[in-house]
């Protein structure tokens, strides 16, 4: 579905991505793990056209994404739930969701998806008239995911959805990711919580200072000694 080949990104004199290859087949959950500053967010930003790459290609359903603006990429069905949630705090919950469907014209479809999001996150329905900025971090994360779903994505990319959330909420977010995937959405998940993301992922990549150093099935990476040591906090 999405194929990244030899992607290189430079900014501010830093070689942030050094020729990475990532393959995202349809209907899979792919995860990208790595430490802070490894280039995970840069990868997502490059796919969305928010960061310009210096070399390489990003192919989506057989066509290059590099020539498109962020707006067009969203309209093609790729959505990013950004790090830090980035919900619009001055808008109500419902208004945030409406903006998630900004490019869509099918009113009936939008209403249906709004119902679907409210089913997935009943908390959001209770708070639909509340200003989004007044909600708790976990609720804001749910809103960010719900807002992403409103554009009817084929590929949903999530940047650190569990960051800063209480353990119970982390569990809830991961079970919702699985549920979204079950409904037919391809997922690219970026996480520092390597264990939880490898557990649900079909395939994983390990990114270190701009290069993919390891890749494999989620289950295999979970038992890999290097991954265990560096990312799962388990000593030998």
């Amino acid at each position: 579905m999405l194929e990244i080949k030899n992607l290189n990104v430079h900014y501010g004199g830093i070689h942030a991505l050094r020729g990475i290859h990532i393959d995202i087949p349809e209907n899979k959950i792919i995860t990208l793990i790595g430490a802070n500053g490894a280039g995970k967010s840069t990868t997502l930003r490059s796919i969305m056209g928010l960061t310009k790459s210096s070399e390489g290609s990003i192919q989506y359903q057989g066509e290059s994404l590099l020539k498109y603006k962020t707006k067009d990429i969203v309209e093609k069905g790729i959505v990013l739930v950004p790090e830090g949630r980035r919900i619009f705090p001055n808008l109500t919950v419902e208004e945030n969701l409406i903006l998630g469907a900004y490019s869509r014209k099918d009113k009936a479809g939008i209403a249906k998806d709004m119902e679907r999001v409210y089913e997935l996150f009943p908390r959001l329905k209770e708070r639909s008239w509340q200003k989004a900025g007044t909600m708790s971090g976990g609720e804001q994360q749910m809103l960010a995911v719900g807002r992403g779903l409103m554009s009817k994505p084929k590929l949903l990319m999530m940047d650190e959805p569990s960051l800063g959330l209480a353990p119970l909420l982390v569990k809830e977010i991961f079970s919702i990711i699985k549920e979204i995937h079950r409904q037919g959405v391809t997922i690219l998940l970026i996480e520092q919580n390597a264990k939880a993301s490898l557990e649900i992922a079909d395939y994983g990549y390990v990114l270190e200072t701009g290069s993919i150093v390891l890749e494999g099935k989620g289950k295999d990476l979970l038992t890999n000694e290097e991954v265990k040591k560096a990312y799962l906090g388990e000593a030998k």
Partner: protein
Amino acid sequence: MASMTFQVFMQHLTNGISLGSLYALIAIGYTMVYGILRLINFAHGDIFMIGTYVAFYGVTLLALPWWLSFIVAIIFTCFFGMTVERAAYRPLRNSPKISVLISAIGVSFFIENLAIVVFGGRPKAFPIPPMFNKIINIGGVSIVSLTFYIPVITLLLLMGLVYFIHHTKTGMAMRAVSKDYEAARLMAIDVDKIISLTFGIGSLLAAVGGIMWGLKFPQLVPLMGVMPGLKCFIAAVIGGIGDIKGAVLGGFILGLGEIMLVALLPALTGYRDAFAFILLILILLVKPTGLMGQKLTEKV
């Protein structure tokens, strides 16, 4: 002071409300642009002046009916404001804020001097259609009909604006862009288009304000936008820049305050313009965010 009758007081009050309405209309343009670009659009007062001149030439040079001329002027000014944004601000979108600010000051001087060349420096008399200078009598208080029309037109425009911003998808997008460009882009919102539209709306309101200003003070000069521009900027700051309700509140405080100061203390007439600046200093000392302004807190 004691000798002021009820009628005279009411006349001052209505006068203050209509001046306050004009300030409010123009202040909204400052506050909307600031809200979305964090930029003080120094050319806003000059955009206001352009609107008034176009309306003047529509009636005098093109011999259009006054209402048609006003509509043409409003539309022209709307596009003029969007052109200023495209030419002077958009190319600097990724530059430091100070560059854009300098560009704004440059555009302001450019428009003012261009106006002197094109329109001439000699004052022009704005033609007043008869329906605006009839004397009407409401409960024993006689006022000029314009004094009545200005707040009514302002109120209608404000209602339209509030509806647009809070109840349309484009209005929501505008509020979203004012908080976070990048997140807005991720929603497939065309940020440049929304910014352009913001300038269009601000300029439209300035044009309506300018035409009504011309009807109230019917003498046009190329620098006529400077003082109202400054005062309305102050109104926006007093109310809390970035907040539309605040701009309206600031406009009315300034307009009413100015008229009442002169009415109650005639000896201070010469300090009329200083009033706005003193008020600004006081507000900045007591509540730097303005009356309705709020500090933003980020939730982690």
